[in-house]
């Protein structure tokens, strides 16, 4: 089976005046297969966010190649860039901040549909359907981000990411800002969605325990490199790298 996302030799070096160049992501290679739930774990600062920012083209890479559904998106711009967001979507770590404070959640959720040509009214109806899929009532469409809780806002953010029916959903520490019970609910929601649509998850996280039940495969990142890869149970029970051992020990 062809991977839906393939990343080859991805590298990011931050250059800033008065400071040494810093390579946050160093020769990263991995593939994500259709329907897969892939996790990237690693301590904070290990470069996970930088990887997914390059993957979604919010950040230009220094070198390497990104293939999305067979298409090279490493350098796409303008209209072609906007088209890739039909296939890949992301849920951010801070749910409330990921919505425009001056627009309703309904506006935010329907925005991608409107931008890709749907009529406003239809898009709003679809937004309401997505909200109910994510376990929120209709009236949330009219609320502003500061009027809902973090967990509710993250559900709305997931609804927004799903609106365009992407093939890949990236979740960058999407549950880290939520408390444990809400975290659980969001994971259940993601599992339920997975049953209803054909989608792959790239699940970024620094919590190994969370990954163990939820993901099919896990990559361990350390200082910008992928140091280990495997099935969660195996990685957790028989870590090959010293770093992974420490990471596991620190959680348990």
């Amino acid at each position, binding site marked *: 089976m062809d991977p839906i996302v393939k990343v080859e030799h991805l590298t990011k070096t931050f250059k800033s005046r008065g400071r040494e160049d810093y390579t946050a992501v160093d020769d990263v290679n991995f593939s994500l297969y259709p329907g897969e739930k892939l996790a990237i774990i690693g301590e904070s600062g290990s470069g996970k966010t930088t990887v997914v920012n390059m993957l979604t083209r919010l950040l230009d890479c220094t070198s390497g190649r990104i293939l999305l559904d067979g298409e090279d998106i490493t350098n796409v711009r303008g*209209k072609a860039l906007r088209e890739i967001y039909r296939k890949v979507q*992301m849920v*951010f770590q801070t749910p409330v901040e990921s919505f*425009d*404070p001056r*627009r309703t959640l309904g506006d935010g959720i329907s925005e*991608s549909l409107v931008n890709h040509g749907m009529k406003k009214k239809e898009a709003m109806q679809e937004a309401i359907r997505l909200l109910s899929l994510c376990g929120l009532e209709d009236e949330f469409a009219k609320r502003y981000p500061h009027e809902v809780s973090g967990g509710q806002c993250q559900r709305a953010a997931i609804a927004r990411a799903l609106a365009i029916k992407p093939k890949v959903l990236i979740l960058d520490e999407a549950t880290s800002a939520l408390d444990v019970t809400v975290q659980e609910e969001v994971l259940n929601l993601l599992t339920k969605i997975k049953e209803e649509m054909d989608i792959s998850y790239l699940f970024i996280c620094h919590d190994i325990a969370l990954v163990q039940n939820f993901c099919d495969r896990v990559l361990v990142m350390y200082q910008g490199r992928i140091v280990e890869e495997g099935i969660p149970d195996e990685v957790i029970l028989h870590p090959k790298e010293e770093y992974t051992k420490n990471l596991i020990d620190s959680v348990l």
Partner: protein
Amino acid sequence: MREPTVRKQNIHHNHLKTRLIIFGTLAILLVVCSFFSEYLCPYDPYLQDLGNAKAAPSLAHLFGTDRYGRDMLSRVIAGSRTSIYSTLLLVGFITVFGTIAGIVCAWNGGRLDSVVMRISDMFLAFPGLVFALAVAAVLGGGVQNAIIALAAISWPKYARVARSQTLAQKETVYIRAARLSGCSSSKLIIKHILPNIFGPVLVTAMLDIGTMMMELAGLSFLGLGAKPPVPEWGSMLSDTRNLLATHPWVTLAPGFAIFVSVMIFNLLGDTVRDWLDPRNAR
């Protein structure tokens, strides 16, 4: 412990609302006055009556008459057309232009940004009125040229505000999320950036109205703005200043008009700033 704070906030909030209504109404009154000044003047502001020159305030002439016997009240009202209306036009224009410049610079960065910002630094380094004097002198007198001179030196402030606000907004999570929703740059700016930087830009503009009014009057006072006999508060002041000791009403009328208008617009600006301050958010 909680209730008193909530009540205090409410009182503060109501207080703000009252201020907003009072100063807003006064400012709107001034603007309406200036717009319909032609119909509000009791006499023709240009009509001379040398037999009744320098008359003290009376029921017929509330602010007295000047040295040509022209009714001061009419001249002050007619002057509001030039002073208030021109100021608003000026502030409106530089707000739009400066904001666009600031947003474009912040959004694109790079060379264009550096060049425009260096130019704006240059303008900001000079004392404003001195520079306006030079520009107005080069362009020659007239209200229109005074406005152009002030616009030329005043837009950098707006460009700075819009630029720094846009830079801050550009890096927010919701702008990144909007990108992922397939927004083009123009859509991002119009739908997301503009509404979110509108507050600070508006406050800058409101607080600037008073200053601009003074500077416009200042230029006219120095003979570089409105030309007599066109009624304008600054040039009326300069025209009549040697009568201050003997016939004070002639000088005080335009002076008072400037004072009151500047104060009303400044107080309104202050109130709007407090109103939009997130710390006072409901």
